[in-house]
């Protein structure tokens, strides 16, 4: 009888790696074997393909069928090979012309009735097909999110449709999603002027923030509003972020529409859940927050190992997982927002209520985040409980839309001047960007001496001061900006 090779791919990290599905149909004992390091889900393709092929009205060959997924050493996982196996089988048994298998890359899961379903990582498959310069044959249900420049997508809903040849290129309109969360707004936040200002600076300069305050002070409420003042994702960011969401099996339409991700994992999260891992390796929350905000509520309650694992992505914006099969890189460039109680009972430093923690417990609690991680957090502020009288008064603060404009303006300025946000500057680059006059320089030297700032402390102070100057629309960092930056250094030494 015959052989047929169909192009498909398997997702490794955030990338779809090409895989050839070779189908051989020959005489012999009726067998259906899949070789080439398939996992259990791939093995189960046999049952799905057999039922789907029959349900779609094709013949299931009574023959020796061997499916080889090449390259052999690469582990294949998931259900996306179903469509390729079915297409190969039908082409090898001459039930379909060879033109379909020859022309495109295909991916999709089959249901028992022959309909074609989407699999996680459709976007990764689309990008791989585009870089090979071939059309992608895939589930019609995924067509809405795959309207990508330069990709020819051939949607099919059911394998019976293949009888009529290669499906037409279809491009249904993408589902529309608001690019900014519109149910939350900073205007609703009463009081908390310092915290709002700090979050504005953080958003403008790409700084990581830690909010410290007693329970019920409004830390979470403030953090949840941070995405409302971030500008929409640009085209490159959209694709990067959507790709991570796609391979994780999440909805990638919001990211493609430009919505910045906001991820708030619970403090019981494991290391793998937070930074990625598992088998096959999946992106963690840090990667799902790529180009957006990672919010860690009750930060000291997170496992120390999980917290420390965040240091690499905070430093280089990627997470590298090393496995026996090789190294995997997940993008993870996010703004970190942490929230913490000042102590286990929550009332240390509160003017109205006494802290009931044992001596030493407060220091231990605050030490749990760890120096190296704290070093990467430029802004630390206290969020106090606000006066109930203030809350009852009907007042509205500055709204998110106007803050968002300021943020966008600052980011643009920083990009023009330094090629990146102030939070990414270091050394001479940073000093040049700050363009301080002598008075400011003297003030900084004095502050560094009296507050015992380390070299790293000075760097962080300068970064924040640079952003404060951007928010004020000033070219040079002055005394005001330095003092404002000093104010964002609640409870720390060096």
């Amino acid at each position: 009888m015959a052989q047929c090779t169909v192009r498909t791919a398997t997702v490794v990290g955030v990338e779809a790696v090409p895989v050839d599905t070779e189908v051989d149909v020959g005489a012999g004992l009726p067998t259906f074997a899949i070789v080439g390091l398939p996992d259990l889900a791939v093995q189960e393709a046999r049952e799905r393909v057999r039922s789907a092929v029959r349900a779609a009205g094709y013949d299931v060959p009574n023959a020796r069928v061997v499916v080889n997924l090449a390259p052999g050493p690469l582990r294949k996982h998931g259900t996306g090979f179903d469509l390729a196996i079915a297409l190969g089988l039908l082409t090898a048994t001459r039930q379909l012309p060879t033109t379909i298998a020859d022309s495109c890359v295909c991916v999709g899961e089959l249901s028992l009735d022959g309909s074609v379903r989407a699999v996680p990582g459709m976007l990764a498959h689309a990008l791989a097909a585009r870089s090979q310069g071939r059309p992608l044959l895939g589930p019609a249900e995924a067509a809405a999110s795959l309207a990508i420049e330069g990709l020819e997508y051939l949607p099919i809903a059911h394998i019976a449709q293949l009888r009529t040849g290669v499906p037409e290129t279809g491009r249904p309109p993408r589902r529309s999603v608001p690019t900014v969360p519109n149910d939350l707004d900073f205007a609703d936040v009463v009081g908390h002027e310092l915290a709002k200002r700090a979050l504005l600076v953080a958003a403008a300069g790409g700084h990581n923030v830690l909010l410290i305050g007693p329970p019920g002070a409004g830390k979470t409420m403030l953090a949840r509003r941070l995405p409302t003042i971030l500008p929409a994702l640009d085209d490159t960011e959209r694709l990067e972020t959507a790709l991570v969401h796609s391979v994780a099996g999440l909805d990638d339409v919001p990211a493609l529409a430009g919505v910045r991700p906001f991820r708030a994992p619970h403090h019981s999260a494991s290391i793998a859940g937070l930074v990625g891992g598992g088998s096959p390796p999946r992106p963690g929350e840090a990667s799902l927050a790529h180009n957006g905000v990672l919010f860690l509520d009750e930060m000291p309650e997170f496992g120390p190992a999980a917290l420390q694992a965040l240091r690499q992505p905070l430093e280089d914006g990627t997470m590298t997982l090393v496995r026996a099969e090789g190294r995997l890189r997940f993008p993870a460039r996010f703004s970190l927002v942490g929230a913490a109680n000042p102590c286990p009972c929550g009332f240390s430093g509160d003017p109205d209520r006494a802290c009931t923690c044992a001596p030493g417990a407060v220091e231990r609690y605050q030490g749990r985040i760890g120096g190296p991680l704290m070093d990467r957090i430029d802004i630390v502020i206290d969020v106090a409980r606000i006066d109930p009288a203030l809350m009852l008064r009907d007042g509205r603060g500055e709204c998110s839309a106007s803050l968002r404009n300021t943020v966008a303006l600052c980011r643009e300025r920083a990009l023009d001047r330094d090629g990146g946000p102030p939070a990414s500057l270091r050394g001479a680059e940073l000093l040049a960007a700050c363009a301080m006059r002598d008075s400011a320089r003297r003030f900084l030297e004095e502050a560094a001496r009296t507050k015992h700032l380390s070299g790293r402390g000075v760097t962080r102070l300068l970064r924040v001061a640079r952003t404060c100057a951007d928010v004020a629309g000033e070219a040079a960092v002055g005394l005001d900006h330095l003092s404002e930056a000093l104010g964002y250094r609640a409870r720390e030494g060096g």
Partner: protein
Amino acid sequence: MTTEGKKLGERGEDAAVAFLERSGMTIVERNWRCQNGEIDIVALDGETLVLCEVKTRRTAKKGTPEEAVTPAKQRRYARLASAYVQAAGLEPVSVRFDVIALLVIAEDRALLRHHRAAFVLE
């Protein structure tokens, strides 16, 4: 196996042979044995070699007759099939595994079900 059980099996096989011949197949062997076990019926359906397992039951209380063809037994049939193809000196041919299930409902009356290509090996 009791004599009665054996008798029932033989009668079932006779009925199956008659059925297969009526549906146009050529019977090649009956009760072909080797050290691995036995193939109830070997037939030719055109060019295809059909290896047929016959299961006869009096009641469906312990499940239908075809349910007795478990995956473990399927693997045994596979070994038997290779042995037969080798012993008969056949070139690679198209092979099919059929199951004929008989459920006896009265003296001289049974429901017969013919499962063509009943299973595929993994």
